């Protein structure tokens, strides 16, 4: 028996239901012309009626190679596809697309209804899960190496104490210290990259942050026989920043520069420069520059990818990823100048 429609739904029209759907809906003819769109579609794409679907969704004048709508017209079946769609605001979104036939009285496909669901958020979660898996593999391997280094150092210390050899003990202790520093640095980067932390913004002088960070590395640079040169403009005004994040960012850049110099066997002496100055009247910048080996084009392109490292077993690839994240959190920009055999200059630019 047919159920009566409740009174509160009497005003409900077929179109209002379609408009309320939380997905994009179009009805298209065999020429891929859009005949009907729902309100959700209009909100994000504008009124696309009369245009071809590939013009609206892809911004091109060419049909898509694997068009589900065309497939539905040819075999009268429901088809599913995943497409990259361009919204009116210029954003690129991943969508799951369903195409289903609308039959005429003669049983022919008169039109095809196309439903598009935005799955960007799911894709992001997917990406994070992949990243998590990768991070476990990479970081476990790297931490194992560092712990083995720590064990090796402890063994040398033990042998030194046993033999009363203080030189040997000192060497072993240096190995222990080096590996503790490494583990501490990697752990801090893991914490920074894995935890969604809220930046604590406050007005700070960039030159003061740079000076205190440089102090942390002075001794290490001397031990590595690398010259450390700071040029910090004291007239830079106090600017809004999360000082601990900026310190982390600078630490990672300085550490990379020092390690690159340490690895460089071709030059008689190596230097690391740190500069803090105006970029223009409304922006300031940090520059960290080394005269180590520089980078080739391929390395330059992959540099900010997660877990990309040029240091082999000695690097996690987290350092520059964290730098990139901190710069973005501060609405900044990062630039790189590098040439193989010459060196590298990392410039981070921030609004004043």
């Amino acid at each position, binding site marked *: 028996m047919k159920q009566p429609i409740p009174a509160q739904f009497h005003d409900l029209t077929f179109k209002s239901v379609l408009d309320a759907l939380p997905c994009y809906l179009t009805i298209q003819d065999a020429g891929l012309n859009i005949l009907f769109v729902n309100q959700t579609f209009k909100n994000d794409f504008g009124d696309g009626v009369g245009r071809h679907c590939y013009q609206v969704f892809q911004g091109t004048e060419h049909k898509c190679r694997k068009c589900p709508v065309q497939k539905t017209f040819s075999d009268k079946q429901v088809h599913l596809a995943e497409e990259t769609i361009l919204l009116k605001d210029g954003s690129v979104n991943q969508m799951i697309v369903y195409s289903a036939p609308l039959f005429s009285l003669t049983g022919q496909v008169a039109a095809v209804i196309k439903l598009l669901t935005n799955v960007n958020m799911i894709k992001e979660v997917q990406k994070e899960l992949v990243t998590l898996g990768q991070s476990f593999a990479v970081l476990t391997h790297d931490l194992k190496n560092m712990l083995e280094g720590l064990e090796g150092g402890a063994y040398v210390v033990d042998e030194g104490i046993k033999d009363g050899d203080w030189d040997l003990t000192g060497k072993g202790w240096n190995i222990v210290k080096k590996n503790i520093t490494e583990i501490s640095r990697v752990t801090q980067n893991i914490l920074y990259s894995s935890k969604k932390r809220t930046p604590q913004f406050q007005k700070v002088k960039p030159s003061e942050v740079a000076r205190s960070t440089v102090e942390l590395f002075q001794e290490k640079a001397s031990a590595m026989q690398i010259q450390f040169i700071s040029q910090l403009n004291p007239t830079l005004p106090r600017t809004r920043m999360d000082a601990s994040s900026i310190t982390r960012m600078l630490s990672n850049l300085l550490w990379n520069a020092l390690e690159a110099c340490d690895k460089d066997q071709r030059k008689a002496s190596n230097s690391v420069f740190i500069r803090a100055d105006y970029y223009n009247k409304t922006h300031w910048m940090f520059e960290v520059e080394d005269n180590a080996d520089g980078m080739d084009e391929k390395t330059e392109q992959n540099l900010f990818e997660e877990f990309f490292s040029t240091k082999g077993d000695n690097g996690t690839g987290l350092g520059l990823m964290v730098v990139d994240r901190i710069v973005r959190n501060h609405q900044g920009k990062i630039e790189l100048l590098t040439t193989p055999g*010459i060196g590298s200059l990392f*410039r981070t630019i921030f609004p004043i």
Partner: protein
Amino acid sequence: MVALFTKIDRLMPKNINILFCTDFSEHANTAFDHAMDQARKYKAKLHIFHVIMPADPCGNSKTTESGMPRGAAESEDDPIQQAIGALKLKYADSLNGSIRGCEFVVKMGSPDVEVVRYAKKHHIDMIIMGALGIPEKDRATRIRTAANVSKYAPCQVIVIQKQVHPSFGI
């Protein structure tokens, strides 16, 4: 200087590309004379290059802070078209002699990064640019453009001071 150019003569390949970078300063004007001399000498293609520094380098603002001359606009709205118009107005009439070709290029960003990136991408054989043409107090940026281009460019870089006579050493 003479020795430098003699060395460059020997090293220069065929189908040479010369990149002349200008900030429209007097140093750049002097550098242009040198760039033309070199382009004629090697029958080279001359890339006349200017970088606009956006007011907001971290966003997409297109406001220019460069020293580009006013009144040369082809399009009032597009600063890149404006700058190309300014380049043509300033240099097109002087492009005489047997050079292989000329291209006017304008980019937005940090001058040193854009110059080096362009030189790498377009297989530039020689960069000629003026020394810093603006007094420190009036400078839009503290970026050490000439020093960084000299260091990171994939080719020879000649930085010209206004005081040097154009024919000196060539």
